[in-house]
């Protein structure tokens, strides 16, 4: 079941999601970002799938936008690896009519080694 903004509280953990970083998935990503073939999975592909996995269980108002992003990469990820994406709400901020969510992401490989972590800040349109 998707959770809406009101239901999100700091510490809320999103259901984890797994992706196989198959050659076809990465090839589609590379075409979309106008890039050529690579030996290792681009870290921004991993971040994009982690964000999408989280968004899949979120029900934010349409028009929500990304205002800042932090990412840290810890190891090379070969094509074919399986990643496990975990995300939680770090903070919920309100400034007047503006509402923002700070979301923390952690991504592990199939050996439970951390491959990436990050923090995304998302601004929501004015809530009715």
């Amino acid at each position, binding site marked *: 079941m998707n959770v809406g903004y009101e239901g999100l509280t700091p510490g809320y953990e999103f259901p984890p999601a797994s992706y196989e970083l198959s050659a076809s998935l990465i090839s*589609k*990503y590379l*075409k*979309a*970002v*106008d*890039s050529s073939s690579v030996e*290792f999975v*681009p*870290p*921004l*592909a991993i*971040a*994009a*799938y982690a*964000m*999408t996995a989280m*968004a*899949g269980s979120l029900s934010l108002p*349409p*028009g*929500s*936008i*990304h*205002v*800042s*992003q*932090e*990412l*840290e*990469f*810890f*190891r*090379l990820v070969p094509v074919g690896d399986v990643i496990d994406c975990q995300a939680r709400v770090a903070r919920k901020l309100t400034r007047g009519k503006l509402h923002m969510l700070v979301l923390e992401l952690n991504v592990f490989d199939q050996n439970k080694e951390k491959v990436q972590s990050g923090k995304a800040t998302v601004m929501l*349109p004015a809530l009715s």
Partner: protein
Amino acid sequence: MLAEISQGKPLPSITKHITQEKINLYAEASGDFNPIHVDESFAAQTPLGGTIAHGMLILAYISEMMTLAFGQSWLSQGKLSVRFKAPARPGDILTVSGEIDSIEDRNGVSYANCSLECHNQRDEAIVTGQAVVRLLGGES
């Protein structure tokens, strides 16, 4: 990769033309179908006045530049912190650039601290930020 990694060295800039087709392709590839990116009639009714590119698409371009500059050091030991200052829209021509601000030694390991920027054809900043790369042997 950069032949020499030193303070003040510019990173290899790259230019990308944003189109709605590219935004749609990215939505397909990432699974992010937020209507602010892909639904032109919805986006026209918002304060943004039209569709915008995914922030993660712009970061992919920044990461491409960092990979050109630092190779596997970036892919395995990179750190990025950015703010989205303005939206990138279909029709925009984006230039991603950066510079090595300093080389720092911490406990015998070298790190390159870089400033980053992505701006459009009107020289408006789209993304600004910093990156840190742990340099693997032989790079500094």
